């Protein structure tokens, strides 16, 4: 093309000179006016002083290379001078930059963009207010969701035809229950070992090692078995619910289901929540047994208590009631985890970041709620004297 474009990498840096000729001030720009030198020229042009001249000439004919940032600086200077009352009689640029100048001078007149402030008191108050309103809305939506879930659940139970998706339900039970057996089993086993070991260490001081088994039996069956299983499943399945449903939402799959005329609650929410309610008690039972086995192994190696002796002591220590108190909480934990997971999944907006944010929130909320509910049960049982 022309010399100006081809001298691209050989030219010098941007220079600005002001020459005074009577009433006329000449702003002479030379060199490479590109984004690289824009910060420097920005401050030079801001501080330019015409010395009282009423006419100005912007002479850029010596510019060897120009891009849009450079052009903008010159155009801005022209506009600033005109705004300050000076007349800009000439604006010279090499011919090749005609189209560029035209694009910027003719088509751009908007003010600079306003950046949202991310820091400071105002931004903090704004965030606080936004979060408050959002929390209120979230509560309102949650209430609506809970009502809808109740209706759909009743329909599925009393009118299973067309409302209960049996195949989906069994798939979920397999995914939530059977596929979680290894991790739940291993963790429960280890908790049994840790509890027995620590308990034995403390109780040995009183010569009451045998009560390790009471500690283990009551602790695991009544509290820890259910709690630990629920927390593992909240991390494993609750997060999966949010991520799966959320991704479907981003992908517009939920909209597709609705346009086909499928009840999205029946297809997505019910099988997951019902599957979890069915699977979690079994998992809890399984975790109880694995923890007992872990405890028995530890008792044998640490305290020399044989398995028959362990069984005898366990039988004395725990009643059916202890076991049932632990088990009764499992379906309630399950419903909480499932509802939170699906609810957050349905809150996902159509962007990728929202899936991650809501998955995190689902796990935190469901673990939090599980522990709160467990505490509430403890208080309730102590009042009832169970």
């Amino acid at each position, binding site marked *: 093309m022309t010399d100006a474009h081809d001298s691209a990498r050989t030219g010098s840096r941007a220079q600005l000179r002001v020459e005074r000729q009577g009433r006329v001030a000449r702003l002479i720009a030379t060199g490479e006016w590109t984004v690289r030198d824009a910060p420097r020229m920005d401050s030079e042009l801001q501080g330019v002083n015409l010395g009282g001249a009423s006419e100005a000439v912007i002479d850029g004919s010596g510019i060897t290379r120009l891009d849009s*940032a450079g052009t903008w600086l010159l155009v801005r200077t022209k506009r600033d001078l005109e705004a300050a009352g000076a007349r800009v009689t000439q604006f010279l640029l090499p011919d090749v930059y005609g189209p560029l100048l035209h694009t910027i001078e003719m088509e751009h007149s908007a003010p600079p963009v306003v950046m949202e402030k991310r820091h400071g008191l105002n931004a903090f108050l704004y965030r606080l207010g936004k979060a408050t309103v959002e929390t209120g809305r979230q509560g309102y939506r949650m209430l609506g969701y809970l009502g809808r879930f109740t209706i759909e659940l009743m329909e599925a139970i009393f009118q299973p035809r067309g409302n209960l998706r049996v195949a989906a339900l069994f798939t979920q039970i397999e995914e939530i229950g059977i596929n979680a057996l290894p991790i739940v089993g291993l963790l429960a086993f280890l908790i049994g070992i840790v509890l027995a070991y620590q308990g034995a260490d403390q109780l040995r001081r009183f010569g009451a090692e045998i009560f390790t088994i009471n500690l283990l039996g009551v602790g695991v069956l009544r509290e820890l078995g259910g709690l630990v299983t629920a927390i593992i499943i909240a991390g494993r399945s609750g997060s999966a619910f949010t991520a799966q449903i959320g991704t479907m939402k981003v992908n517009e799959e939920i909209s597709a289901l609705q346009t086909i005329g499928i009840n999205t609650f029946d297809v997505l929410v019910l099988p997951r929540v019902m599957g979890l309610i069915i699977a979690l008690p079994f998992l809890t039972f399984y975790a109880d047994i694995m923890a007992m086995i872990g405890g028995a192994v530890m008792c044998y190696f640490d305290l020399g208590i044989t398995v028959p002796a362990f069984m005898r002591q366990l039988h004395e220590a725990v009643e059916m009631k202890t076991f049932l108190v632990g088990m009764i909480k499992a379906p309630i934990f399950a419903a909480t985890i499932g509802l939170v997971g699906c609810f957050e999944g349905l809150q996902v907006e159509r962007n990728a970041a929202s899936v991650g944010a809501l998955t995190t929130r689902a796990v935190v909320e469901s673990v939090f709620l599980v522990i709160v509910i467990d505490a509430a049960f403890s208080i309730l049982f102590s009042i009832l004297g169970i």
Partner: protein
Amino acid sequence: MANKDREVVIKVRGLVNIMGGNMIHDHIDLDVYRGEVIGIVGGSGAGKSVLLHSIVGLNKPREGHIEVFGEDPTPHRERPKNSVQMRWGVLFQEGALFSSQTVAENIQVPLREYTSMSQELMNEVTSMKLSMVGLPEDAARKYPSELSGGMKKRAGLARALAADPELVFLDEPTAGLDPISANQFDMLVKDLQKSLNLTVFMVTHDLDTLKATTDRIAVLVNKKIKIGTIDELRKDPDPWIQEYFSGVRGRAALAS
């Protein structure tokens, strides 16, 4: 446009790409000259995007040699001054805007990385880029999720052009746009190309876009590449190329 003395901006030699066991590119050679608009076409799976990804260094080719501005385009762990990344801009298919940032912040990412502009100047430049790509002022404070598909593409283009690159890659710039928006986008690319003297490397399927904007076209067919102007390519005996330019859509687009 047959001037072979012009500066070569992108130089591809003997490029071989294999994806999932299939050879996609079989020793491809390609030269792109400064100031031209080259369109890349080819059937689905012909390796258009892979070619683009190879040139911008996102995909390591199995064999062959690629130079952009005479440099190796592979991303460096530590960025040297004046790297090729500063001299090109890439518009991805869906815009690839950073979803946690507003449009204005997106546009300022390259400026912040590569220049020491004051925040005021960056805001002015951002406003200028927005009007260059034809976005309204209030788009600046919006997040990508609040934009329509066409606006995302324009915002993506504004980000690609933010640091005044010499070379711009466009991946299917008009896909998913209505014909009027697509037409405006073509005009926009052509105008910007003229006024900024850009070199444009464009992957597209849109025959109207090809006709309106490109100087030369590279067709990826049978793992090879054929380069020429539309008129030259229409004389090519290859059945795919014949079908492409002489099918119903092709004739309609080229007749206008």
